[in-house]
């Protein structure tokens, strides 16, 4: 079980890039259908059901329509940036997925192929870097349209995205403390060897990561950049046809990547729960399943069916989060802008900082006591569970996130 030779590596890389790229676009197309079907279900409607069986061809019809529709551009718009903005927002959204491992390594006659486009040594930093580039597309779209609503949407989205990026980054620190590495394959492996998904021992991080992912993808309850009732549709008001579609694809690609990240960082990635047959990782160029007591590597036995099973596990976990995104969108109302900012800066930032210190302290104490394995995970789960319960109990007690100020009551209750 050795690594690939350079030429074979290149061939497989090309195949992986094409497969992953196509899969993302296909998934995005069907996520739009899923969104409409789920919203229809929640609102007791049927949803799209005319194009193909159960409306399954609807995304294709939408795609063709979007290419053939007339594009409008305000005469006062800045032409160059107006055209650049959709491209600038779609590219980072599609590229971010590259470092996420989607399944266990696949054995082939030429060697073992990693089921990740690029297992970069910087891993999670790459995700943070590229996902934050998305803000440029949105802001430029808002600014270049020369429309007041677009501009407000653009300004709002940039302020909101940078605010929650801080919380997002800080919620990742405990994961890095526990994993001791920034590559996503290693984080998956660490969860396997600990026997705990990080959602349990780092529950508050998980919660913060989910919340800030919603804010980063501009999804409800954080969709203020495109609040229909206030800003028409915010930064993409002036966009039509394919350019509008590109913003749409970018949003859903971000949702997909965020879901895959949550699954990878906090739910064990492609690892199948309660089964150690899929434990495999690289150590010094050799694929091993684990280490014996004396530190000797145990060779892993990859198989095509293991790759398939682990991919299904990954897909199920990711789909769950995609569904969560859709579910929340059609269930919760939108925040007010001051509430969004309060939650980001006055609640999540200080609590996330305190939690980093708490986790680091707990881990160091446990290490000093020589606690390992299952007991280590349980102790950390208990500490985090108390922190999370405390957070959920104390937040939203009208201390920081306030409703409408007194004296400005809704018309009906005056």
């Amino acid at each position, binding site marked *: 079980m050795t690594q690939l030779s350079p030429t074979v590596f290149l061939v497989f890389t090309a195949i992986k890039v094409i497969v992953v790229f196509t899969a993302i676009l296909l998934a995005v197309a069907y996520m739009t259908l899923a969104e409409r079907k789920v919203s229809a279900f929640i609102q007791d409607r049927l949803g799209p059901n005319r194009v193909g069986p159960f409306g399954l061809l609807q995304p294709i019809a939408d795609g063709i329509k979007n290419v053939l529709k007339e594009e409008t551009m305000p005469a006062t718009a800045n032409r160059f940036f107006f055209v650049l903005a959709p491209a600038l927002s779609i590219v980072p959204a599609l590229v971010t997925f590259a470092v996420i491992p989607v399944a266990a390594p696949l054995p082939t006659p030429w060697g073992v192929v990693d089921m990740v486009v690029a297992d970069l040594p910087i891993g999670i930093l790459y995700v943070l870097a590229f996902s934050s580039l998305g803000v440029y597309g949105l802001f430029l779209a808002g600014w270049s349209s020369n*429309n007041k609503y677009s501009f*407000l949407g653009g300004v709002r989205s940039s*302020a909101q995205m940078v605010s929650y990026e*801080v919380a997002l980054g800080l919620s990742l620190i405990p994961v890095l403390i526990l994993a001791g590495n920034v590559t996503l394959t290693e984080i998956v492996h660490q969860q396997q060897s600990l026997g705990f998904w990080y959602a349990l021992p780092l529950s508050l991080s998980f919660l913060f990561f989910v919340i800030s992912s919603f804010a980063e993808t501009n999804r409800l309850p954080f969709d203020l950049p495109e609040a229909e009732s206030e800003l028409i549709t915010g930064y993409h008001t002036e966009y039509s046809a394919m350019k509008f579609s590109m913003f749409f694809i970018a949003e859903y690609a971000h949702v997909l990547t965020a879901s895959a990240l949550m699954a990878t960082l906090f739910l064990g990635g492609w690892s199948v729960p309660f089964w150690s047959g899929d434990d495999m990782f690289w150590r010094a160029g050799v694929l091993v399943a684990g280490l014996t007591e004396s530190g000797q590597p145990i060779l892993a036995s990859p198989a095509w069916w293991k790759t398939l099973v682990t991919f299904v596990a990954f897909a199920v976990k990711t789909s769950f989060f995609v569904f969560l995104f859709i579910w929340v969108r059609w269930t919760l109302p939108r925040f007010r802008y001051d509430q969004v900012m309060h939650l980001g800066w006055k609640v999540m930032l200080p609590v996330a900082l305190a939690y980093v210190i708490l986790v680091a302290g707990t881990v160091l104490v446990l290490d000093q006591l020589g606690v390992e394995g299952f007991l280590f995970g349980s102790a950390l789960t208990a500490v985090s569970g108390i922190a999370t319960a405390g957070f959920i109990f104390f937040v939203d007690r009208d201390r920081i996130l306030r409703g409408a100020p007194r004296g400005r009551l809704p018309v009906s209750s005056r």
Partner: protein
Amino acid sequence: MSSSYLPVLILLGVSVANAVGMLVASHVLNPRRPTPEKEMPYESGMIPLGDTRARFSVKFYMVALSFIIFDLETVFLIPWAVAARSLGWQAFAAVAVFTGVLVVGLIYEWRKGVLDWK
């Protein structure tokens, strides 16, 4: 391990080509029948009044400044976090002090009302 970045470059190339392809395809295929009304900025059917490039709240600027500080803090925390378990208590104390200094800054900001949106 510079070769591990090659796949990313390929994916980046494919994504950029895809984005350009989408723009060009719709530019070639779509009909163009502009009218003065279509080229007006859409403000719910009202004729736009005033200039878009107006002044806007300084709060957004303050948020951007705070973001730089705290995002940099996150970046500084990452190398420590990766090695936290082997560095032990000494590094923990250093990080606690570092975080403490920034929390004092956050409290100052909070008290000054920078984080209030009224």
